[in-house]
């Protein structure tokens, strides 16, 4: 017994220095973390200098792979055992990627973050982690884009006609009719009360945004239930704006550029689904609370169904690849991207940060005063339900919207039932 104890002591004594050295090597080992950013603008201006200062052993290799291509490119690289440690893409891809075990479960590392700095962690708004949490409950990354979508209107024109901010869909239509009949707008000059995206360019975000505001719901598999009061109202909205000539008659060919341009150029009085970065562009032409304003969070809802209205946000999270060999270093990179100063710099320059402190920051509010009116919307925004065949869902929604715009007198109920059948066939 004694001999065995001595032997163990000798072995431990001999091995201890090398074990400690290995541990030290692991933490000091130079690690390269490759990050694919969805847009150049998402890359912090200091290009990871602050990270290198704090963690000299971490080097970040930043590349730009467009959001639209990132998921498919990642899948190709991942299949070959290559690819980035972190990549940014649309949140709609998360279930597909997680279903194929291509994402790393970072839950325990986020616990570590919380343990290390609970105040900093709690400053993240709910969508930051919700958008990167899979249906299996795995946290596979973080979303740092925090701007909710909102409807904006020309406050000066509304004031002139004695109209108040439109709170319901009926208010939107009625205000549109008042504006149309007021003589304020000249259709010959391409001026109409409402501007929206009716074209086939990816426009599903805005269709869904309206659907949820109207109280739309989903099946367990993530299919929108169009054959419902909300769905019928959604179709009726598109039909009414065409029938009442509240939108440009060529709106069926419009994309996001035309919609924004119409409002900023003074050719439309109301537009929906506007992100904060677009509001920044508006501010250069029109003054907030003087010329334009946002409607209160959760509006315009369906008459009598205010409580059913939901706000959803499409996001572009940073996901962690299951191929990563350095989850600890990845956590530090994510913390750096989420850092209040770093995310504020990106937020002021490009897209708003998913941090409460950002939305309450005096410099931010001075530059972007509308944020004060949209904090509520940002805090209650949720992750949109995702179907396994989400892109096919999108195509069907666009088909439905375009049919409604082309057939303003058709029966909306029948149309809703028809498209519900097409949607159900995806299950």
């Amino acid at each position, binding site marked *: 017994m004694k001999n065995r104890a001595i032997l163990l002591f000798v072995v431990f004594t001999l091995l201890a220095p090398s074990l400690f050295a290995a541990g030290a090597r692991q933490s000091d080992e130079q690690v390269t973390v490759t990050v694919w950013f969805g847009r150049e603008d998402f890359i912090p201006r200091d290009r990871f200098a602050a990270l290198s200062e704090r963690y000299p052993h971490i080097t970040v290799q930043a590349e730009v792979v467009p959001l639209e291509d990132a998921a*498919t490119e990642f*899948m190709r690289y991942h299949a070959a055992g290559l690819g980035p440690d972190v990549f940014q893409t649309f949140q709609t891809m998360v279930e*597909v990627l997680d*279903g*194929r075990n291509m994402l790393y479960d970072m839950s325990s590392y986020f616990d570590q973050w919380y343990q290390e700095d609970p105040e900093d962690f709690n400053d993240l708004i709910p969508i930051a982690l919700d958008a990167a949490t899979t249906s299996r409950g795995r946290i596979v990354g973080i979303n740092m884009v925090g701007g909710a979508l909102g409807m904006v209107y020309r406050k000066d024109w509304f004031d002139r006609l004695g109209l108040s901010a439109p709170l319901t869909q009926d208010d939107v239509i009625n205000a549109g009719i008042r504006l149309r009949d007021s003589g304020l707008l000249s*259709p*010959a*000059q*391409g001026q109409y009360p409402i501007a929206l995206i009716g*074209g*086939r*360019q990816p426009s599903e975000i805005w269709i869904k945004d309206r659907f949820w505001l109207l109280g739309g719901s989903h099946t367990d598999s993530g299919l929108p239930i169009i054959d419902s009061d909300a769905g019928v109202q959604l179709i009726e909205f598109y039909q009414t704006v065409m029938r009442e000539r509240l939108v*440009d*008659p*060529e*709106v*069926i*060919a419009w*994309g996001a550029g*035309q919609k924004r341009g119409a409002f900023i150029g003074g050719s439309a009085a109301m537009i929906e689904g506007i992100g904060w970065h677009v509001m920044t562009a508006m501010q250069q032409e029109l003054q907030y609370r003087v010329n334009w304003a946002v409607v209160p969070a959760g509006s315009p809802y369906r008459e009598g169904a205010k409580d059913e209205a939901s706000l959803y946000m499409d996001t572009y999270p940073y996901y962690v690849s299951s191929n990563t060999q350095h989850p600890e270093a990845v956590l530090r990179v994510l913390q750096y991207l989420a850092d209040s100063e770093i995310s504020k710099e990106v937020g002021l320059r490009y897209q708003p940060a998913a941090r409460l402190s950002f939305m309450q920051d005096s410099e931010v509010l001075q530059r972007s005063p509308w944020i004060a009116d949209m904090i509520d919307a940002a805090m209650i925004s949720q992750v949109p339900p995702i179907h*396994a*065949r989400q*892109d*096919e869902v*999108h*195509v069907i929604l666009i*088909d439905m919207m*375009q*049919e409604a*715009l*082309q057939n303003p007198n058709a029966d909306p109920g029948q149309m809703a039932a028809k498209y519900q059948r097409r949607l159900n066939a995806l299950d």
Partner: protein
Amino acid sequence: MTLTREPPRRQRLEPYLFVLPAVFFVIGILGYGVFSGTLMSLFRVDLRYAETPFVWLDNYRMLLSDGGFQNSFVRTLVFVAGSVGIGFLLALLFSLAIFRCRRSAHFFKALTLVPFLVSGIATAVIFRFLFGGAAGVINHVLDMVGVERILFLAHPDLALLVTILAQVWTIFPLAALLLHAGLLSIDPDLFDAAKVDGASAFYVFLRIMMPIIAPMIGVSLMWLSFASFNVFDITLALTGGGPGRATEVLAVYMYNVGFRQLRYSLGSSVMVIILMLNVVVSMALLRLFKR
């Protein structure tokens, strides 16, 4: 009787050696793409699933029963017929005009080529400025002469017509130059002889010029049809396939299915169908215009 000595073997092989890199290049890039795409169309390759089972012709069956594909197929045939018809007519007119130019022919040839050098996306933007919205140039002119605004991009048939015009604008210059090259190859003595015989200009055009440039007509029609079957960028940027699905030609449908819906094998099947259409039409044109 003259005895011609056969060139040595090495000399006979030389041309093939020079062609070899190009052959490898074509086989390596195009051949690989076509082969792997065709193979993929026999499997179910869908990025949402890890398994890629062999499904034989299921992808093609699925396509043929899909209303979206049927619509795209018909729209593509109309689009190609329109682009080739209008494109060929314009190319012929331009080539004849340049052929008649005694001075500055080179300048006009270069000028004709300009639209061909403009990218598809830029062409789409130009045509949006021309035909889109109340502020579009065409509607602006119509408004000045008291004609009501025409909703070019909101009407299914008009949108298709505008897309055809945009496509024609960018592809006809090359066809015009091909025809022009054919016209330049005609022996001028033939024109003089026809003139002496009192042949009319139309007769000369129909009986002398057209038969001689027939192979070039075949090549330009092949180019026009090939470019029209494969058009993607102009349509996507100009109309996105809309309104409804009025301008969703096969290449756009293929993009939507393959790259937006991630159904790669279905997209590959559309690619094979487009390829077959190209091959069939090209072979028919070659046979028709073989001199």
